[in-house]
């Protein structure tokens, strides 16, 4: 006889506000097999778990149903609690009445009714649960870090420091990411390159770290502890092992009209290039879209070839092909970073019409000593010194329409204060205006920094939005704005306009998320397993999040999260094995036809056949071919269970009868 305990969680008001939890507990207490049905404020709390443990011990429960948040959240918590009280952890089922009920419904009556039905389905299922014992699976002692910005570099360094192999996959020709493009960092105004490049070098020199630059992750298979990633090393037409990074090729390249991506197109470079002087790896790359020879299509034709002639190391290889590397990993850290959004939809700022309207990141390059103007701030249009600069905040951030992003990009207030301050410091004759909605400066020494800009450097902060930016024929730019405090319409004749452009996750993040089966929010930021308690893990086991791919962050926050992600990954890698999922397929030999249908659909090769002797009535025997499943290899997808016409194949934890019992309970 089944003795089932039902535990309904209020989750504070998360559930209780829309679901009458007492009514749910009451209704479920009448279900057949249920001997105890209780509700509690927070089932996942220690007191809540103790409630379950005590009920198991006192009532000799044979099954537990917790009506609470998603099983993806606390299934493990409750399984552990059950195990602690001596009940097999797989005799616990969760009815998801939060994410899939209270949070999506508003009407208490219908939400309560639905919660009761979901509870019934879980009770129906748990009646058919069987005790399962988990096996173990080994952990590959190697981590993959996707993205080679400051987040990826820091994570890789920390993991390597702990003694594990790490591979960094970076899609650009060099690691360094956005931080390498930044001039100075707030609030200390130290030079970004001076603190970043030593870390880049450290990464390249660390024996445990392998850097795959100009590469992409093209496929990921497997599961925690046992991922297999395919890394596509894009052909750069330069043999990395031979190239010394001398730069001779870049000087002889006759095709010098390639927009310099590192400088955001503010100047040009050659078709063969090294992104910047401190690039890691310091290896040249040929851009086949511009290279005179590669553009031809047939590399054997006698065209150009000057770089190959100039290269004394013989590193230029026009015949190079993409290379694919397959590698096993125990953990994966995503550090794909961010990009400023495209401003095509913001015509009012004339970004596309006027060269002197620039983004903040472009301004970083314009002011950088290694930038296009050697560190002298000049207007991109006529290379003259700007005397009046207008900064526009929240361009595309905090947007309530589809043009921009609904969120605050977080870093703009601070870097604009930095820019304003740096300009006023270096060019005291230049007037600086900043138009803002709010100035947000939470952070250590942040508000002090902003106040310095206003008070010490006399930057004109004006609360109000810029309505229109119009380039004028005299080269000036008319900035039309409103001052909300004095309620005046303003026209400023500016020489330059700087747009604090919203940032968004890198475009490669979404395909990567689907490859990794990780969650993303509507803005394509990766979703953490728990917003407060598991901020650096994804909900998919073994995948960790580092840096701005999870949300807008400044450098210190990014580095903090990078190290946190590293420590989580290390925590996984130090284990020799992890407990595997006991919810695997099994074949009932008495019903098996030996037809091989299951084997054909098994993605893991977990099914084998053997001829086995079976007793038949009247003391006779018969040899039959039957399937058997290797539980260590099976991952429990269940493809075989449907391919099997006789129903000999079934899946632990999700058996035919369990799923049908759920169907029945829901349709009751």
């Amino acid at each position, binding site marked *: 006889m089944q003795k089932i305990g039902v535990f309904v969680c209020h989750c504070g008001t998360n559930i209780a506000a829309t679901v009458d939890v007492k009514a749910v507990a009451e209704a479920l207490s009448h279900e057949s097999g249920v001997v105890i049905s209780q509700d509690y404020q927070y089932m996942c709390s220690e007191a809540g778990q103790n409630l379950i443990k005590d009920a198991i011990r006192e009532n000799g429960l044979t099954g537990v149903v917790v009506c609470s948040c998603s099983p993806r959240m606390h299934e493990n918590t409750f399984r552990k609690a059950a195990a602690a009280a001596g009940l097999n952890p797989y005799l616990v089922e969760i009815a998801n009445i939060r994410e899939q009920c209270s949070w999506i419904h508003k009407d208490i009556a219908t939400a309560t009714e639905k919660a009761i039905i979901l509870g019934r389905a879980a009770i129906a299922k748990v009646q058919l649960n069987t005790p399962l014992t988990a096996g173990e699976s080994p952990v590959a002692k190697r981590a993959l870090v996707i993205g080679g910005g400051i987040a990826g570099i820091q994570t890789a360094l920390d993991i390597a420091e702990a003694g594990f192999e790490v591979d960094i996959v970076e899609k650009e020709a060099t690691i360094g990411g956005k931080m390498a493009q930044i001039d100075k960092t707030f609030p200390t105004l130290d030079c970004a390159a001076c603190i970043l490049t030593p870390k880049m070098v450290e990464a390249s020199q660390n024996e445990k770290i392998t850097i795959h630059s100009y590469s992409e992750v093209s496929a990921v298979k497997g599961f925690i502890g046992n991922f297999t990633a395919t890394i596509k090393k894009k052909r750069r037409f330069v043999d990395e092992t031979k190239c010394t990074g001398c730069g001779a090729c870049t000087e002889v390249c006759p095709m010098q009209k390639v927009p310099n991506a590192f400088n955001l197109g503010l100047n040009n470079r050659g078709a063969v290039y090294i992104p910047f002087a401190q690039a890691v790896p310091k290896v040249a790359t040929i851009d086949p879209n511009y290279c005179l020879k590669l553009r031809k299509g047939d590399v054997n034709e006698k065209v150009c070839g000057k770089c190959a002639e100039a290269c004394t190391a013989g590193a230029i290889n026009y015949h190079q092909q993409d290379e694919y590397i397959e590698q096993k990993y125990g953990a994966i850290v995503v550090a794909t970073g961010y990009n400023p959004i495209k401003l095509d939809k913001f015509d009012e700022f004339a970004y596309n019409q006027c060269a002197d309207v620039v983004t903040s990141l472009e301004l970083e390059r314009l002011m950088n000593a290694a930038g296009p103007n050697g560190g002298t701030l000049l207007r991109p249009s006529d290379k003259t010194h700007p005397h009046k600069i207008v900064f526009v905040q929240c361009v595309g951030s905090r947007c309530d329409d589809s043009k921009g992003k609904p969120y605050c990009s977080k870093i703009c207030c601070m870097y604009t204060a930095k820019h304003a301050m740096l300009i006023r410091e270096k060019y005291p004759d230049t007037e600086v205006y900043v138009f803002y909605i709010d100035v947000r400066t939470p952070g250590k020494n942040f508000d002090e920094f902003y106040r310095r800009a206003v008070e010490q450097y006399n930057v004109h902060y004006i609360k109000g939005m810029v309505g229109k930016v119009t380039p004028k024929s005299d080269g000036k730019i008319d900035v039309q704005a409103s001052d909300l405090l004095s309620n005046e319409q303003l026209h400023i004749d500016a020489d330059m306009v700087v747009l604090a452009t919203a940032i968004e996750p890198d475009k490669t993040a979404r395909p990567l998320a689907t490859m990794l089966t990780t969650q993303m929010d509507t803005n394509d930021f990766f979703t953490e397993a728990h917003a407060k308690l598991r901020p650096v893990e994804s909900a998919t086991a073994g995948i960790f999040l580092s840096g701005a791919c999870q949300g807008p962050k400044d450098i210190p926050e990014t580095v903090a999260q990078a190290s946190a992600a590293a420590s989580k990954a290390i925590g996984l890698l130090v284990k020799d094995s992890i407990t595997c999922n006991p919810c695997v397929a099994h074949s009932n030999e*008495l019903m098996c036809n030996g037809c091989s249908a299951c084997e*054909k659909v098994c993605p893991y090769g977990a099914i084998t056949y053997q001829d086995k002797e079976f007793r038949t009535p009247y003391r006779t025997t018969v040899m039959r071919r039957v399937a058997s499943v290797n539980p260590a290899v099976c991952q429990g997808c269940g493809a075989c269970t449907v*391919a099997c016409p006789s*129903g000999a194949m079934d899946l632990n934890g999700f058996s035919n009868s369990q799923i049908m019992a759920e169907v029945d309970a829901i349709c009751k």
Partner: protein
Amino acid sequence: MQEAIISRAKQLLADGTVNRVIGWKRGEFAYDITPAIFESPEEIDADFVYDDFTSANVSKYLVKESRKEGKILAFLKTCDTYSLNQLTKEHRVDRDNIYVVGIPSDGKLDVEKIKAKGITGITGVERNGDILTVKTIYGDETMSVADAMSNKCLSCKSKKHVTYDELIGEDGEVTDTNRFDMVEKLENMTSQERYDFWRNELSKCIRCNACRNVCPACTCENCVFNNPDSGVENKAAADSFEENMFHIIRAFHVAGRCTDCGECSRVCPQNIPLHLLNRKFIKDINSLYGEYQAGADTTSKAPLNNYTFDDCEASIVHERGVE
């Protein structure tokens, strides 16, 4: 033909190639022929028959027979060889224990079709070219052979034997038939018309399991519909749903495996055109995933155990045909 088959059977028994023969045994009337196993030349001489009514597909018996001691000789018509191939592919028969002699068939007659003409008291049948003379206790009746031809033979898909150890007679070619005409006709009906058509047909079902038990693809050790633990055990259709359930799932379980031998419709005591369900799957598979003939070989991957990255989405069902 019968003589040639009998003499070859006796030779193969005599030279020890096989120790028994599976074929057909004559009955009380001209048409009630039973598949049978013959172990001696005397039995063969006495009862072996191969004529216009020997339409039963004997390949399914080989599931059991090929596991017995000694080799068995099986005379297989073209359609039967597809069934055997499919069984071989699914490891349901031990092909090495079977000696297959492919025999030709120019179409079998269906006594039900003769009876449907109102002809009764049948004592004998003579086929002269296109004309069939039916002898009855009420006198002779004539009809065209085509009208008496078994439905499964009217839409014969192939005259080519796909597996055999030797052939009697000439081998033919895969034929281009109109076997999907009726499926197409149904597809072109409205949803309500299709529903009415099938309700009318399937409501006749008496759940006798003849279709399943004769089907060479239905060889499960334990059918889900017999297994109380499967949750879908279904001994009788207590509701129209159960009629649908049985036939949908049965057709689904043999989808991509059904060779279209037509036995299900032949044996249905209620004359339900069950083969149309299987043909619907075959037609869909052919048009969505490329031409596929189950049983044509023993190595290809069954369409439902296979996929391509750019398979159509299930929504294709919504996009085509009439509503």
